């Protein structure tokens, strides 16, 4: 007879994630009980404090990690084998939390819309109706965005830490559902926003279906959900090879959809453009970080011993993603869409890094592992993306944010500081030396080269050159042309947005000039434990 055994939960290592979920639940309670007027301050403070505490906890856990196990893979498998807390996990947690704090600060910005946030007053009101006008004249504000964000952050933290397929799927859904909602909450251009949310939801659900199907197939092959068991089965069992391969492909689809790799990138420009820019900033940085963490774990741990079966597929995907992202970005005339395609191209570069050598044992001295390069790239990418989208929230005209290129013409002459900062972020995304992006690109390209993926690296370099073209084109537009007709101007934000942008600039510069410490930190994250 099966007796019930009380599960052991390693609270000492898991509490940062629990804090986030706890704060999210608390936020829901506050939303229910606090009077409307007080909610904004309480919710935003609670979110920032909760994230900061979780970040502190992550650092604390990271510092204690070496006590848990030796070697390059340190950490432990917690919560009855469902969650892994190891070096890469805590590094990713740290990144997600840092950019989530940036996201919350952007959420909380109220100066740009004249005392209101960028979120709809009453999301349920149909656009263009009396109800919507009322909501807007009463100065209503959706403060549910903070608990939603916290749930998403919790899901994101769980995603790369999941040690079995089912937990990974649950994390995927937990992080996705709030994002679908958040995407539809824009105050301005609500139809576009709602359309984006619906598209995101439909396509997300579609891809989740594939992921779940993959879970079933791989379970059929391995007889277990646990990554270590799957790895064991891959190693031993040659039968049912096609079951494994199809399952692996389905799982890959679910994850590649989340990171926005081609040909699963179709949602990215529409959603990035339609969602409130603060949400886009948060989503572009954190979702990609979490999803890449999950991707790495799934392929390195569960399918790590079967590298040669999945690497060609990732080669193709990486090449497609980089080229498609870079080429399509060339013809964009909307800043947010251009950044979305640029983010697609970055996904390709990150996939290039994934193709590198996995284990430090296979490296000569001075080389870096795939893990290290991808983690570092995610860091540089996150700062540039959050900073870049934060700048986009500032450039406005009478209709709110002005994202059309035509409105940005001559911005460098009207607001040299903001345009200069944005140009700096663009240069980092383009990978110009002395910015963080250059070091990140250098890192992923070298690991891919070291693993012999030179065709991918050549495509990556060609894509980088194409990418320089569209980044620099926007810089030219800002600094060397005069705007015609109605042009956008910069609205001075509160300290919240300014601080986010300033941190992004400083981090991008510092990581570009002295990348050593952070590169070392990413290297010390070590490897996944199996």
């Amino acid at each position: 007879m099966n007796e019930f055994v009380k599960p052991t939960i390693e609270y000492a290592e898991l509490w940062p994630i629990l804090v986030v979920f706890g704060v999210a639940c608390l936020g829901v309670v506050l939303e229910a009980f606090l009077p409307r007027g007080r909610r904004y301050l309480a919710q935003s403070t609670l979110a920032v404090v909760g994230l900061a505490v979780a970040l502190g906890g992550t650092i604390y856990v990271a510092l204690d990690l070496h006590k848990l196990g030796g070697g390059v893979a340190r950490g432990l498998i917690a919560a009855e084998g469902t969650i892994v807390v190891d070096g890469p996990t805590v590094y990713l947690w740290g990144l997600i939390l840092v950019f989530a704090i940036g996201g919350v600060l952007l959420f909380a910005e109220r100066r740009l819309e004249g005392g209101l946030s960028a979120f709809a007053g009453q999301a349920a009101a149909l656009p263009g109706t009396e109800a919507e006008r009322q909501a807007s004249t009463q100065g209503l504000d959706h403060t549910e965005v903070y608990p939603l964000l916290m749930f998403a952050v919790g899901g994101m933290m769980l995603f790369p830490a999941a040690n079995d397929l089912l937990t990974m799927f649950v994390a995927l859904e937990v992080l996705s559902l709030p994002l679908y909602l958040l995407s539809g909450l824009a105050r301005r251009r609500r139809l576009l926003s709602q359309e984006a949310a619906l598209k995101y939801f439909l396509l997300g659900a579609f891809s989740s279906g594939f992921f779940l199907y993959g879970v079933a197939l791989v379970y059929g092959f391995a007889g277990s959900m646990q990554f270590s068991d799957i790895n064991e089965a891959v190693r031993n069992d040659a039968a049912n090879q096609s079951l494994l391969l199809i399952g692996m492909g389905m799982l890959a689809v679910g994850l590649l959809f989340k990171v926005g790799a081609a040909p699963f990138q179709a949602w990215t420009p529409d959603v990035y453009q339609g969602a409130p820019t603060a949400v886009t900033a948060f989503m572009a940085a954190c979702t990609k970080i979490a999803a890449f963490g999950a991707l790495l774990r799934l392929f390195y741990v569960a399918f790590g011993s079967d590298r040669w079966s999945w690497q060609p597929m990732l080669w193709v995907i990486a090449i497609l993603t980089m080229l498609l992202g870079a080429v399509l970005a060339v013809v964009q005339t909307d800043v947010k869409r251009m950044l979305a395609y640029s983010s697609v191209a970055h996904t390709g570069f990150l996939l290039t890094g994934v193709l590198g050598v996995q284990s430090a044992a296979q490296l000569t001295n001075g080389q870096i592992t795939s893990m290290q390069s991808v983690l570092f790239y995610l860091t540089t990418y996150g700062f540039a993306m959050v900073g870049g989208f934060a700048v986009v929230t500032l450039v406005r005209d009478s209709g709110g944010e002005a994202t059309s290129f035509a409105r940005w013409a001559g911005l460098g002459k009207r607001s040299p500081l903001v345009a200069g900062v944005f140009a700096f972020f663009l240069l980092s995304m383009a990978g110009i030396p002395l910015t963080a992006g250059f070091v990140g690109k250098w890192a992923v390209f070298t690991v891919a080269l070291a693993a012999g993926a030179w065709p991918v690296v050549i495509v990556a370099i060609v894509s980088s050159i194409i990418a320089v073209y569209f980044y620099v084109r926007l810089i030219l537009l800002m600094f060397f042309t005069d705007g015609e007709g109605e042009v956008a101007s910069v609205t001075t934000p509160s300290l919240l947005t300014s601080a986010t942008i300033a941190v992004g600039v400083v981090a991008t510069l510092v990581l570009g000039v002295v990348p050593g410490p952070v590169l070392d930190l990413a290297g010390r994250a070590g490897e996944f434990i199996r």
Partner: protein
Amino acid sequence: MYSQITAWHDAAVNIPVVDPSPTSGVLSLAWLVIALPLAGAVILLLGGRYADKWGHLLGTALPIGSFVVSLLMFVSLLGRDANDRQVTQHLWQWFDVGRLHVGFDLLYDPLSALFLLLITGVGSLIHVYSIGYMEHDPRRRRFFGYLNLFVAAMLLLVLSENYLGLFLGWEGVGLASYLLIGFWQHKPSAAAAAKKAFVINRVGDIGMSLAIALMFVTFGTTSFTGVSHLAAGASDNTLNALGLLLLLAACGKSAQVPLQSWLLDAMEGPTPVSALIHAATMVTAGVYLIVRSNFIFELAPKAQTVVVIVAVVTLLWGAIIGCAKDDIKKALAGSTMSQIGYMMLGAGLGVGGYAFAIFHLLTHGFFKANMFLGAGSVMHGMNDEVDMRRYGAVRHAMPITFLTFAMGYLAIIGFPGFSGFWSKDKIIEVALADNWVVGLFALLGAGITGFYMTRLMLMTFFTEKRWKEDVHPHESPAVMTVPLIVLAALSVLGGVMLAGNWIQDFLAPVTGVAPHENPPLPAIVVTLLAVLVVAVGVATAWFLVGKREVSVTAPQDVSFATTAARNDLYGDAINDALVVRPGKSLIRTLLSIDRYGVDGVTTGGPIALGALAGQLRRVQNGFVRSYALSLLGGVLLVVLALLVVNVG
């Protein structure tokens, strides 16, 4: 560090190595010699208009200060034992890159001592003279700043203990000469001449930088001490290559064939600049380089032979050009080229010739500075006229200039007893002993020298006057004539250095001691022969120029030889045909590749890219159903990619 190789090396060949001891006492002031004029350049050039009033005085005082320090150091050096006359001063570590460690070190030895005296001594006199010469020029302060820079760079060149420091000075000299030749930049001819000098010097600089790189690759060091110790261990080919590269460098700075063409154009600069370039600095740098690198050339006989050939060609080339020029400065420039050829010849002849090369360099420094400044004085009195056909009988109007110039004239043609007589005679003697063909050419050159210098002398100071109407020649002020008098005295007395073989013995720690050989002809016979040849040259000039009437305009119905000489023996035409025209067509080709190839890709690329993107973006049509379809396609792609690789 070098002990093992030294032991082996000393047994094999007797070439002195550079083995200095640290400086002490007065010799520790070596850095000051460079620092003073450098400070002058900085103050004058950065001081702006505030320094206009006193700039020229400061600019003159500082080189004089350098001269005083050089003199003190020289006296101190003489007080030392002959074996202890090489000292080095480590100023700071210049840079360390990988295996390359370069210190900012100075080397003071008999060779640099003599150069220091020449550069600062003659240089100072030229500065004094320039106060008068440039009096009415609004940019006089800047002129003095450049002069100081020139002197400082040249001093660094001769004081550095390694080739890299030498190269720094070398480039500094190139820069300063560019600035000074083009000083009257409003004249297009001056700007073009400066550019030409700079570009042709760059060709020589390529040789220098390649030589330094080769040295580093071969020896792992560029210091004179290190290279001189290790040279014997290098292969013959390497040493010959080094020698030829250094020769190329020397040809650039010293205006030797085939890099000679800039020197005549360089006359576009103010006359004191010509004096400075020709007498005290710049053109002597190449001779210095070869004598200084004796530890390489002694082991590279092939390179040495090429040096001799280049020298002989140049000494005749310059002399022939000098015969046909009517511009007094260009005639003098031709003579400089020829005289430097003599020095190079001496340097190319090896141990026996080094000391005489330097000896001739010093005496030439005296008499050529004297004559250039004299020519400047004549021009000063004749409204800047340079055409000798417009001179004539100037001696009455400018007695001091005439007398001092005459001393220089007698020295350069080698009139017995004058400084040039001793120094040139010695080189001819050594050349004859080495190879009689070379010796005969050197003798011939001496005869031509006699001809063209007499021609110059006659056309300028004798014959009847052919001045333009508004010209009223007058003697120059004392600030200009006093340097002339000093230089004239040196031109006469410079030969004193040979007394008791002093200069050979003094330079022996650097150049080595020549083994005693029995010359094919007794020295006195050579001397008589040389005097005779010169006398023939002088007499020819007397009959062709002095006895005839000099026409005011140059006759056009002249022999081919004269036309060729007037055109610098077609040096520019040769450069044009061999370098400039092929270079231009190469550039044109590159340009069209750039325009149609590179630009085509960079401008055509985005257009093609835009078209491609325009097609691709149709997929992004905004319909979820299409997106879902592409997602499904992606699923097929992924699964097929997996299956094809693994099952297929």
